[in-house]
């Protein structure tokens, strides 16, 4: 089996070693599978391992490369996919008991694109049931049990891409597909100490992926580095006529590498000062220290405030209303009672009471908020703040509804998700119990290259992303 040092290499480095035939795709897949079988169950990281498929794809990659048919930087590189993405021949459970035996006879567009790129699917990553589409109150709301944080298994990975976060942080795969409706990539990336990217809405096709909120769902990469996120995004992105909301041809594509974007003289970063009500001690210091790293590279750091507005309310209401449409049959039939979480079992009934006027009102306000936020980017290339307001919570933490917090209407995930903006989170330190702290960059719509450029520059001058948890 290959050493842990190899298994924690970035995707770009793995791909280069495969291209130059210094690394065997078969040996790499076998090593990740062995590690996934040994460590995965301890963390509840996977829903399904696709061992047979992985070995078949790895052997094919090895033969093709040997024969001189190199497909590109993901050829022979393993990955995991959140279990809401259809992969032909394997269950796609959506993390929920009512769909525990569900199978699709086609591949989601992202899986098809990765097949074309010669990538190797190791397995389907565990997730929060229905990606939290009907609401949930804690990390145990999953068909496969609560995902445990590789940095400390008493703590949660965050969700809903909970398994994708655990898989990447534990070195069970070099990268994974996550999905993000409101923070479901950014939060696990922050809590697991990895990079996670939510691309601009519409850049990556959702065809074949479970829908929660049609106007807010995004798929994106979770990996070791921001650079890897850009590399993977270049394969995932592109127009897809099968996704109604796909960006047009010529706009949806994302090209790697992006050498023209790096933080240098004149790069303007807005340091958000009013989005979190409170933060874990030490976190703001870690964020400020990270921004000083970029300042030393020539970036101009200026405090920025998000204008007041019901961002969080509009985001939550949109999700509740659209999820009720997406899961109408599950709710009406009463099979929502089979969900693990007590909130998920009944929340749909409450959401069915929203009116069409309510929905349209929210969507009218949403456009105004979108314009309000877009104006901020006249002054800044990216906005920066903590990935989350704290490091990971214990898996056994009480449900959120017992918290003493009012609605935090300007939380960055609500804002950027509501407005379809790209965001990328990377680790920037450690907090209590040696759990990772995260930093995130948010960009203007379609400026995915700016958030990657900022995060990549930060990682070129720091070592936080090279830390890894002790696992056996």
């Amino acid at each position, binding site marked *: 089996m290959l050493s842990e040092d190899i298994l924690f290499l970035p995707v770009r480095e793995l791909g280069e070693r495969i291209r130059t035939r210094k690394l065997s795709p078969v040996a790499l897949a076998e090593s990740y599978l062995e590690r996934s079988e040994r460590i995965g169950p301890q963390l509840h990281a996977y829903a399904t391992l696709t061992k047979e498929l992985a070995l078949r794809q790895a052997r094919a990659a090895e033969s093709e490369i040997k024969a001189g048919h190199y497909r590109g930087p993901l050829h022979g590189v393993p990955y995991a996919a959140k279990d809401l993405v259809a992969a032909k021949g394997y269950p796609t459970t959506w993390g929920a008991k009512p769909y525990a035996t569900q199978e699709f006879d086609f591949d989601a567009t992202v899986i098809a694109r990765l097949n074309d790129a010669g990538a190797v699917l190791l397995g389907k990553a565990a997730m929060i049931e229905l990606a939290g589409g009907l609401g949930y109150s804690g990390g145990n709301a999953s068909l496969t049990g609560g995902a445990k944080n590789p940095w400390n298994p008493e703590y949660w990975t965050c969700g809903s891409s909970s398994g994708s976060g655990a898989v990447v942080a534990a070195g069970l795969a070099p990268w994974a597909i996550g999905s993000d409706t409101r923070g479901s990539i950014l939060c696990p990336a922050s809590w697991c100490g990895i990079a996670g990217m939510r691309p601009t809405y519409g850049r990556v096709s959702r065809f074949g992926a479970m829908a929660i909120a049609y106007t807010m769902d995004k798929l994106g990469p979770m990996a070791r580095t921001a650079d890897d996120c850009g590399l993977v995004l270049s394969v995932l992105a592109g127009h897809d006529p099968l996704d109604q909301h796909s960006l047009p041809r010529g706009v949806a594509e994302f090209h790697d590498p992006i050498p023209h974007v790096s933080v240098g003289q004149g790069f303007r970063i807005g340091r958000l000062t009013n989005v979190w009500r409170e933060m874990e001690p030490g976190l703001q210091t870690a964020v400020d220290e990270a921004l000083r790293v970029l300042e030393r590279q020539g970036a101009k750091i200026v405090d920025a405030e998000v204008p007041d507005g019901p961002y969080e309310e509009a985001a939550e209401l949109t999700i509740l209303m659209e999820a009720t449409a997406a899961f109408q049959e599950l709710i009406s039939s009463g099979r929502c009672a089979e969900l693990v979480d007590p909130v998920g079992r009944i929340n749909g*009934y*409450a959401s069915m*009471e929203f009116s069409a006027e309510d929905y349209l009102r929210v969507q009218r306000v949403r456009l105004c908020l979108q314009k309000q936020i877009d104006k901020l980017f006249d002054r800044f290339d990216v906005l920066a703040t903590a990935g989350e307001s704290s490091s990971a919570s214990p898996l056994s933490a009480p449900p959120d509804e017992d918290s003493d917090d009012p609605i935090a209407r300007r939380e960055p995930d609500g804002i950027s998700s509501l407005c379809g903006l790209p965001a990328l989170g990377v680790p920037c330190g450690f907090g209590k119990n040696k759990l990772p702290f995260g930093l995130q960059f948010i960009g203007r719509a379609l400026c995915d290259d*700016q958030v990657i450029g900022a995060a990549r520059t930060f990682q070129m001058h720091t070592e936080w992303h090279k830390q890894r948890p002790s696992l056996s």
Partner: protein
Amino acid sequence: MPRAPKISRRQFNCLAAAAAASTLALPDLTAAPPGEYRQTGNVSGSTPEQAREVEAKLANIIRKYGPRLSAADREHLRKILAHNEIMLASVRAFALQNGDPTSTVLKVSVAEAAPEREKR
């Protein structure tokens, strides 16, 4: 969505205070066995109108799905509905003009974003 909708203890205190100030006598649907409707108590809501809305929606849910819901489920639903009303009130408070369109399908700002990229 990483978290379920939050309903804070502080908000419930506010809701409870508003309910206590209210003279509304509305049905305690959580105490009723499935399918039954008994008018016994007050409901919580930040305004009497919101409290009435919560109870009307809860009654409608129970009319349609009552046999599926325990007393605890009903109480939980009341809290969720109250939280939803707070969020709706917040959105309704945002001033709109008649001509403000809907983002029924979200469109990213393609035309506005592209020139910004070209500047760099």
